[in-house]
């Protein structure tokens, strides 16, 4: 029932029943509002194509592909790189060719010739501006851990983060935090002591931050947060200065795709200069081509000298999907952040 509630079927053409091959079925864990300009532009470039877009939560998308109820998609898009890698590793993708390279310095944004990244979305801190009027804002993970200890009262019950257990992206970010940052355990405990608010999605966290229910958001998806902050003066976004994980949203053509060629065209378009430019200028997402910046990033934090850690699209991501590893990680995570 929950799944059905999240699924929203969207037709992007006035002619929904055209020839089967011209229907491009996309199953994606991306807000439709964030990706709509790209879909529109692709349809303009390919007038005969009709896009059937279905939105999922990352974990639900993964479950659907493993145990399908719906017809197989042509293109699968998700920000949960580990689940994407797992799907490709298990043979759910088919190789495609002639996909443009966005930059020669980003071999990690592509795995084999099956999985292709097309965005560069840092994991950020979000804060409520009013609450931090006379306070120093933590710009590093270490500073945050310190403040959580020293100003426990201020943060008590007013800091929010992703739920690693129910959100694929939340799990990926939390586990990669552990790989990247040696003090993650301490930070998790501090979050637990501060009775952190745990949510499944960035949008909910952002809403609560705007209203002032939460003063600080830890590990939020930078793209959505920056887009929200553009239109909302209550919240501010900080790209952590010590290190910032970067999520690479990726796409692949499904093994059983009916319109595999069109799917490949779509992925090529996402990585083409036109697609990257549209991502930078018209969407909430951030382009893989970092020279383009983003219209949601007026302070140009994306190109500051921050220590970015893009999460590579590579089989090492499979490790945290190991049954035992996952159970252990989630156990310690829930214990730390325990209710």
């Amino acid at each position, binding site marked *: 029932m929950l799944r059905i509630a999240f699924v929203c079927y969207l037709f992007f053409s006035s002619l929904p029943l055209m020839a089967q091959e011209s229907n491009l079925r996309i199953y994606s864990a991306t807000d439709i509002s964030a990706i709509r300009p790209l879909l529109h532009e692709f349809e303009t470039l390919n007038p005969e194509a009709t896009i059937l877009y279905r939105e999922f939560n990352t974990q639900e998308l993964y479950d659907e592909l493993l145990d399908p109820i719906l017809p197989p998609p042509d293109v699968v898009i998700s920000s949960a790189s580990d689940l994407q890698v797992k799907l490709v590793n298990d043979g759910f993708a088919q190789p495609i060719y002639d996909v443009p390279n966005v930059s020669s310095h980003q071999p990690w944004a592509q795995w084999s010739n099956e999985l292709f990244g097309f965005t560069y979305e840092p994991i950020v801190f979000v804060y409520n501006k009013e609450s931090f009027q006379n306070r120093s804002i933590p710009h590093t993970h270490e500073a945050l851990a310190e403040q959580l200890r020293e100003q426990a009262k201020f943060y008590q019950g007013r800091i929010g983060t992703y739920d690693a257990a129910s959100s694929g992206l939340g799990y990926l970010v939390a586990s990669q935090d552990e790989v990247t940052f040696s003090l993650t355990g301490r930070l998790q405990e501090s979050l637990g002591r501060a009775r952190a608010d745990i949510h499944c999605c960035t949008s909910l966290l952002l809403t609560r931050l705007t209203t002032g229910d939460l003063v600080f958001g830890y590990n939020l998806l930078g793209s959505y947060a920056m887009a929200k902050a553009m239109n909302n003066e209550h919240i501010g976004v900080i790209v952590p200065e010590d290190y910032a994980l970067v999520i690479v949203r990726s796409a692949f053509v499904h093994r059983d795709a009916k319109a595999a060629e069109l799917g490949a065209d779509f992925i090529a378009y996402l990585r083409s200069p036109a697609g990257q430019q549209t991502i930078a200028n018209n969407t909430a997402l951030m382009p893989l081509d970092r020279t383009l910046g983003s219209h949601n990033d007026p302070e140009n934090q994306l190109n500051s000298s921050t220590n970015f850690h893009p999460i590579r699209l590579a089989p090492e991501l499979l*490790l945290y999907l190991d*049954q*035992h590893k996952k159970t252990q990680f989630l156990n310690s995570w829930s214990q730390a952040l325990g209710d």
Partner: protein
Amino acid sequence: MSTIEKILALISSSEEYSLRQRMLTRTALFMCTVLAILSVGVWHYANTSADYSYDRLLSSASVTMLDGINVAKNQVHIDLPYSAFEILQLAPDDKVYYAIYGPNADFLSGYFDLPVKLTDQQADLIEPHYALHTYKGKKVRFIVRQKRLSERSVAGNVTIILGQTTLARDAQMRDTLYAALTTLMVVMGTALLVMWIAINRALSPLNWLSSQLKTQSPMDKQNLPTTQMLEVAPLTQAINDYRQQWLSALAAMRDFIADASHQIRTAQATTKAQLEIALTSDNEQIDKNTINEIYKDHTKLTRLTNQLLAHATIVHRGDRQTFSVLTMQKILQDVITQAVRDYAHTDIEFEYVPPHNDVQILGDELVLKEALRNVIDNAVQHGSHTSNTTAIIRISLHYRQENHQVWVEDNGPGIPESMMSQALERFVKVGRNTQGSGLGLAIAQSAALTHRGQLLLSKSELGGLAVCFSFPHIMDANDA
């Protein structure tokens, strides 16, 4: 294989061929064969080396993974280290599959449907084993490695099966193969080029020789210019020697023709003078003495002509070297029989002393008979003509350690020892007999020389001249 044989047969059967082309073709064929053989070796090497390097990746990753398997709270505790999969990142595009099995072959984690069978052999504990399988439609190289857990609660082997697709492995194999093959081809190509240059270089003396020979007249007495090439020097030397021999043979022939024509002309002139004298004589009746003189002269001329022709035949046949094995007794018997018949009207006594063994030599029957006949004729001519003693001609055949000898002796006056060597020259007549042509002994000597033998003159115990032919044994003749 059969096509190559056909080509080879075609090459060898055609009558005219280019040495350069044939050498190059054969070298190329040989090199291709070598290349094919080496390619197989290189392919094998490329495979082995690619397997070796990527198996090491698998091996170290599996060791690292086993590090994360321990016993905690009386259970197998699996906490795979992140670095394990980072090691596998060295093959960036390859997919990774693994499975972990507990002590009782119970599935613990990973992919449950890997196509690798679990074995519970003690050997596997020490040495991991590798296997290539197809999984999810891809070629996957697997390693199976075990670790012993010996806690009280959990005792037994945990097994890890780790697999990786073979994209990087195959790519490295291809790289190695292509690099090695390219090197091989370049080496072979260079070798062929060097070969081509070498063949041209090696054949250039031939061109040089033919150009030298073309510009020179065959009668040229000049030698070919000396060459610095050690390998060519014997050839030019041989050509020079050959030409010198030809030239000297030609000179001998010229001398002979000059001598012969002089002799024949002299004899003809004498005969003609005799006839003219007879014709211009006042007498109607021709004096019998005159006719006798003319007859003598004519006989002499005939004999001279015959002997000249015989000499030419012997010299000519000697050049051709058509020798066969001959039994000397037989030849002597034939010659003596003929001589006895021819001289039946005279009172000459022929003696024949046969040898103890069979005497066989390598020679030309016709030449030998002619030579022997000439010597016998010579003996008859120069033998005793006094009526109180009977002319004796003794012919004997001796088998000696070093050679065979045929002796022809007479009891005539003989030749003084000082003149003996002169007697062997053409047209030299020794002694009082003027009927001889002066060719008999010369013919015999020519015959002896063409048989690699000798002709020796000495004084006979019968009182006259002893002519000794010596011939080498068959083996020596062959060796010479």
